[in-house]
């Protein structure tokens, strides 16, 4: 297999939109609906979190929760 071809910005954006739609569908379920505002606020906050550099922290038990 050759190296994967570089995907264009628009295709990558469309790909992320598919995932966002998946998040919406998952949390739109009536049992999870109350979590939706929190999740979408957190999604916005993710941009800020990604900029903090704190993502490198990995503890052995982190996978148990996250």
């Amino acid at each position: 297999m050759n190296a994967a071809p570089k995907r264009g910005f628009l295709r990558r954006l469309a790909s992320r939109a598919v995932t966002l739609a998946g998040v919406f569908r998952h949390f739109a379920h009536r049992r999870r609906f109350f979590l939706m505002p929190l999740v979408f606020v957190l999604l916005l906050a993710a941009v800020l979190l990604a900029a903090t550099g704190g993502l490198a922290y990995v503890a052995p038990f982190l996978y148990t929760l996250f």
Partner: protein
Amino acid sequence: MAAVLGVSAHYHDAAAALVVDGRIVAAMQEERFSRIKNDPSLPRRAARACLALGGIAAADLDAVVFYENPYAKLERVVVSLAREYPRSFRQFSPALGGQLGSKLWVLDQIADMLGVERRIVRFVEHHESHAACAFLCSPYADAAVLTVDGVGEAATTALWRGEGSALRCLGAIDFPHSLGLLYAAFTAYLGFEVNEGEYKVMGLAAHGQPRFREELARVLRLERDGSFTLEPKYFAHGTDTDVGFSPALETLLGPRRPPGRAFDLEADSDDRRCADVAASLQLATEEALLGLARAARERTGATALCLAGGVALNALANARLAREAGFERVFVPPAAGDAGGALGAALLGARDLGDPRPAALATAALGEPFDAGAAVDLARALGLAALPVPDASEAAAARIAAGKVVALCRGRFEFGPRALGQRSLLADATRAESRERLNRVIKQREPFRPFAPSVTAAAARAFFADAPNDMTPFMTTVCRTAPERAAALPAVVHVDGTARVQTVTAASAPDLEPILAAVGRETGVPVVLNTSLNGAGEPIVAGPVEALAFFLQHPVDALVIGDALIERSAS
């Protein structure tokens, strides 16, 4: 007819597996390529190697299946953090950062990694991946399936009914009640590395007495219906991700063991206490699994049981299930943990596209092969005397029978955590010094840790009471050694009289079987000590580069690589 790639990643043991027209073509862990033990990163090189082996371009894939649901995982993280707040305050940033910054987008990352359309990348549930890996690789048409691990999306334990190609979930136990997290927390308490030291806890358990049984009953409560609950006050999964247990556990059992301190089970009373804690934990885990398995037997009426999930790597518990749970047959796949989830996901994807169920898994040699000629050229370039031998198996057997330690690197490497005769260190099982030399000098492991035997399937019954069975080809269970034989196999029989046996046929381990046959001809005992070909803290060797590096760095006597022999004395 379809080509499906399964992927596991982002937690531990990332792997890729390729299934074409319902046939398992390849399955590999990323750690073999990256040389990072339990590497969780996207399995870029493993996926590439699987596709190359199948002669398939990524663009020709019909589906790519991730082994768990990233949205349900996000939900559990959010709910757990909210439930534990404010004690979970310190975990908020790393947890949500990890989820929202990376893990939530894993399907996009996979599409980018392979350069395929996002629409063909999908997911299945974590425990369904485990169940598929166990059941669809098993020789059973009808079975109860138990999946038991740390945690998937929310479930930590699930019961399934497998019929034909179908899997139906009959029930689940959710986080935080988890046998995997219980064992992991105690692994940390005993001073071992989580996700790596669980085998050491199992080995240590045989040296102790379960005198903390009552204390463990407070930590792990077994219910009448076969389920279990953990007492939350002893754990800190949401608040202390370094160890996972709370100070209450130390109040109950005594202080934790400092990591890295050398063990002295004879002279140090605290080490003996730790061995007793390990024995109590092992007993509690086995009894919890027995409860689950007996309930599964009663509920499904099936006569066969399949097990998967990280807890299914507990070979001691698997042996008890086979003896006491009421099933006629038990199967545990070679990669029962998260790496196996990649294979399970691929099999589910293939099934959903209409492909037939694969034949029962006959061998774990699903990894990348290597060019034997190029390996010899490389050895010679390194100044090693690599001599082609007419029969490499006979040459290896002669040296093993003479008490030498032989490294073996032939064929495709294994899928899963066990060396099963493709990337192995082999030694004479009848000499106690083989174990000492391997433990203390070559692998530099704790002296209490046992080594496993490999034996021809035909001769297995003469040496080991419960062998062969459906698990022994993959070393996922232990067997009791025949009492009259135990003294003859001091290097591979543990202090409790058991051994984690691999039974070998030409189909299951084609490179090991002729060696065992030749050792049998020379010594009358077709058994060898078989341990993984890797240095301390390293993943098992993938190809000739790592095998030759191992030979140069460790005092083994010979290396069989392809059809060539390299001897220490000659080099």
